[in-house]
């Protein structure tokens, strides 16, 4: 019996970050049948290969029995994340202490294929620490090479870190809502809807609005880069220092500037 020969995981806590990543990045278009996708997923969670001899004679009856034991795979990961991982070597950095550079990179990695980038997200969120002379915890600066660190997290249980990422996503949403005014366009959206109408009576204004819209799109495309350049007073040599500024500090300053109308 297959089930006597291989270890079927019983919950998400038995799945590593690497296995999770493999599960989540399966592309159904790469497979010719749904049963081969199913087999691939089972192979991932059992640390075998889909074409291993162990699966050679698997009957659909046995497969159904294995699937019955694996219903947890259809459930969300509810386990609370760990504050420290890898025997305490890395600690979850409080979100309010994130720098602008860390926040920007998290934005990018989370919203551009989270599962492919999950190790990088973990590497930014979980950091080495030390105590200063007064016993305060200091988090290592964001100056390490992400690519050299990512493999460290492959074998840790996904449950140790997954909900830290979920918590960050919720925190980020609240944070951006708080500073929503900073992201409002400079011109009235309603005017855009009527550009065609306006063009009939005031072509000059319509042309101006179209140019504003074009500029807005370009600005959105270069959102973070533009912000960094603005804070660095257009001096690209200063950008690295700007990314090291605290996120909350930067946004508070920007909000103040906007409210006071300071350029």
């Amino acid at each position, binding site marked *: 019996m297959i089930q006597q020969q291989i270890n079927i995981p019983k919950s*998400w806590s038995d799945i590593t970050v690497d296995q*999770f990543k493999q*599960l*989540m990045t*399966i592309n159904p278009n790469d497979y*010719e*049948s*749904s*049963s*081969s996708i*199913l*087999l691939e*997923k*089972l192979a991932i969670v059992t640390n075998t290969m889909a074409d291993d001899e162990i*699966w*050679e*004679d*698997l*009957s*659909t*009856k046995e*497969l*159904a029995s294995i*699937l*019955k034991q*694996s*219903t947890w*795979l*259809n*459930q*969300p*990961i*509810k386990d609370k994340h760990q504050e420290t991982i890898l025997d305490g070597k890395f600690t979850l950095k409080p979100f309010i202490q994130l720098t602008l550079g860390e926040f920007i990179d998290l934005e990018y990695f989370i919203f551009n294929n989270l599962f492919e980038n999950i190790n990088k997200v973990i590497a930014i969120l979980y950091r080495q620490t030390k105590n200063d002379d007064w016993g305060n915890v200091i988090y290592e600066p964001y100056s390490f090479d992400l690519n050299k660190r990512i493999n460290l997290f492959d074998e840790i249980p996904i449950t140790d870190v*997954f*909900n830290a990422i*979920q918590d960050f996503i919720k925190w980020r949403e609240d944070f951006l809502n708080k500073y929503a005014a900073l992201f409002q366009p400079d011109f009235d959206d309603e005017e855009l809807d009527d550009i065609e109408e306006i063009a009939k009576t005031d072509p000059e204004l319509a042309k101006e609005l179209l140019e504003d819209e074009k500029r807005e799109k370009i600005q959105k495309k270069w959102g973070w880069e533009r912000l960094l350049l603005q804070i660095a007073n257009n001096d690209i040599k200063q950008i690295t220092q700007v990314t090291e500024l605290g996120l909350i500090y930067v946004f508070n300053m920007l909000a103040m500037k906007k409210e006071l109308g300071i350029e």
Partner: protein
Amino acid sequence: MKTIILNDTEYHLPHQPSDFKLGKYEKVMKILEEDVTEIEKYSNLLVELGIPEEVIDDLTIEEFSSTIKDYMEGTTYDFSKFKFVPTIEVNGRTYQAFDEDAEFLLKVKDLNWIEKLIKRNPDKYLAEVLAVIFKDIELTKTEHYTDAHIRHKASLFRENVTLDIAIPYIGAISHELLTSLQTNVTLSNDTTTN
């Protein structure tokens, strides 16, 4: 076989599953699924079953309806009466689906192949399904699971194997696809967002 008498001529038409080679059955099913008038459909059916077209063309509407009704009588089958045949012989070679003293268990590997083949040709796959399940006892697994071999065997089975052999296997596969795997966990990718 079913005997139909038209213009004093007897025509012996395949009627029960054991009368139909898989290839013939596939053609019959294709005819019955065509999007044409009922008269055209059943005319084509009778031609396929063995009645010359000119004979059908000369039938009155009543004779045509009566012929169809007569033929269709007894074509509702109790599928549970068809037993699994573990071994078949075609052109001197033996093909086995399972051991004589065991029960038929569909392998996931076979299901994978069957799914692929049905996807490739949803209108014509009966012989291919049997070609996956019935393995040449003189070949290795590696030799069995190749497109060329399956295709060749399907072609042989189409001409030589009858529908009554296929029925229990098709039934078992449909059951697996509709119950065991569909109603169980499908391990979808969208399961981990809270």
